[in-house]
């Protein structure tokens, strides 16, 4: 109950008080770059917890059949190094992503968009019990991504539920990405953006709650970005031995 209240309070606080700009690093965005285009992405995460260190390297291929829909496949590799000695590497859970933009309101230099999102996690990885990385179990995530983008600032937020029928990792998730451009908006684009991103995660069946903060920086050229972020727990209310220490993110995306 306390966790639910925390989620709701943070959710409301964030929604009422913050602004952002650009595509976030650890979150998602509702803007799609033109029908018929492909984007390849990778966002390596090095996650260190009390259990060990895990390196997650996904290769993501996104395709936009139209200006308001997206399908993608994520092929990930995971390297694991447990504190108790076990280590190795293997294929992690393959994911299929689908997005559909159902609302768009445009004005000069700004746009508001809403997107319905589903992420289907296939049980192809090892059973490492690592949320979002490798669970070896099927899960279906259903959520809404919202974004308000302007040339000076913007906001992207995501709210959704991850349903795992044969496991205990059902999760209520809320993300908020705030970004500010450090350079004047220009085209052809050359951007340096700062990101301030929050992730609320409540693992319902285990009653775990985490509020994570990620500080990121992104360089964006014409059709390529390079991203770096460090994520730290602000609230780490999970079982002892499972707590997150920090995560590093290193990524790039290329649109063609």
């Amino acid at each position, binding site marked *: 109950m306390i966790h639910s209240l925390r989620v709701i309070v943070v959710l409301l606080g964030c929604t009422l008080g913050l602004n952002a*700009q*650009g*595509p976030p690093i650890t979150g998602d965005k509702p*803007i*799609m*770059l*033109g*029908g*018929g*285009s492909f984007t390849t992405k990778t966002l390596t995460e090095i996650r260190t917890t009390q259990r060990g260190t895990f390196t997650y390297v996904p290769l993501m291929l996104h395709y936009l059949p*139209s*200006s*308001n829909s997206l399908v993608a496949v994520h092929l990930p590799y995971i390297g694991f190094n447990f504190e108790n000695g076990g280590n190795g590497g293997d294929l992690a859970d393959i994911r299929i992503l689908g997005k559909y*933009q159902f609302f*768009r309101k*445009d*004005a*000069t*230099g*700004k*746009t508001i968009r809403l997107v319905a999102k589903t992420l289907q996690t296939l049980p192809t990885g090892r059973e490492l019990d690592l949320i979002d990385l490798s669970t070896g179990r099927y899960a279906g995530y259903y959520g809404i991504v919202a974004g308000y*983008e*302007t*040339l000076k600032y*913007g906001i992207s937020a995501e709210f959704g539920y991850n349903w795992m029928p044969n496991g205990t990792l059902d999760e209520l998730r809320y993300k908020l990405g705030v970004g500010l451009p450090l350079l004047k*908006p*220009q*085209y*052809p*684009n*050359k*951007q340096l953006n700062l990101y301030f991103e929050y992730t609320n995660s409540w693992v319902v069946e285990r009653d775990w709650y985490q509020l994570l903060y990620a500080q990121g920086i992104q360089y*964006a050229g*014409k*059709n390529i970005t390079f991203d770096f972020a460090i994520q730290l727990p602000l609230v780490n209310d999970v079982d002892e031995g499972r707590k997150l220490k920090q995560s590093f993110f290193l990524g790039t995306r290329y*649109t063609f």
Partner: protein
Amino acid sequence: MKWATKKEKMKRTYIILTITLLSTIAVAAQKEMDAFKVQVDGLGCPFCAYGLEKKFKEFKGIKKVKIDIETGDFSFSFPAEKALSMEAVIKQVEKAGYTPITAKIIRANGTVENSEDGKVALDPNKLESTEIIVAGNCDLCKARIENAAERLNGVGEASWNADSKLLSLNFDPDKTSLENIEKSVANSGHDTHSHKAKDQLYDKLPQCCHYERLKTK
């Protein structure tokens, strides 16, 4: 010696003729391009502009693509022989995921088509050119002033200079009047010497557009 000079002269003449011929061909080729101006809403970040440009690159032969993300002004030229239609341009903006507000095509033969009025072709021989003073400050003002003029049926090209404050335009006096153009500009929040913008409209302009008010005649 004389033979060598004669040969030299002939060589020079050939070079000059070749350059002249190539220049003529180049100028003729340049004239064969239609110019397109589209006002696009929803370009909330430079990446959005990339998405728009990428979609239009599907039109093989597109040249001089220019996007001003602050004003949403998108312009390009395209070979006249391919007769790219207004509908195709508007549809392509929508396919890119953005909202087209107005579009104008200035054909290589001088005719002008406006999206708002359907295919209203202006006879280049009937167009009158003129300049009027319009108050404003910045690129946002420029986009607003030019759009206010160009959206009128009968107006060809309109270009406002932030330094001189002059709006240079051409229009067909059978279809519209200078009075109408100045009214339209004033209704967008910008003073001219004949028509002052309403205070409410002026107050609604972004801070950077708050120019020094003009005294109307």
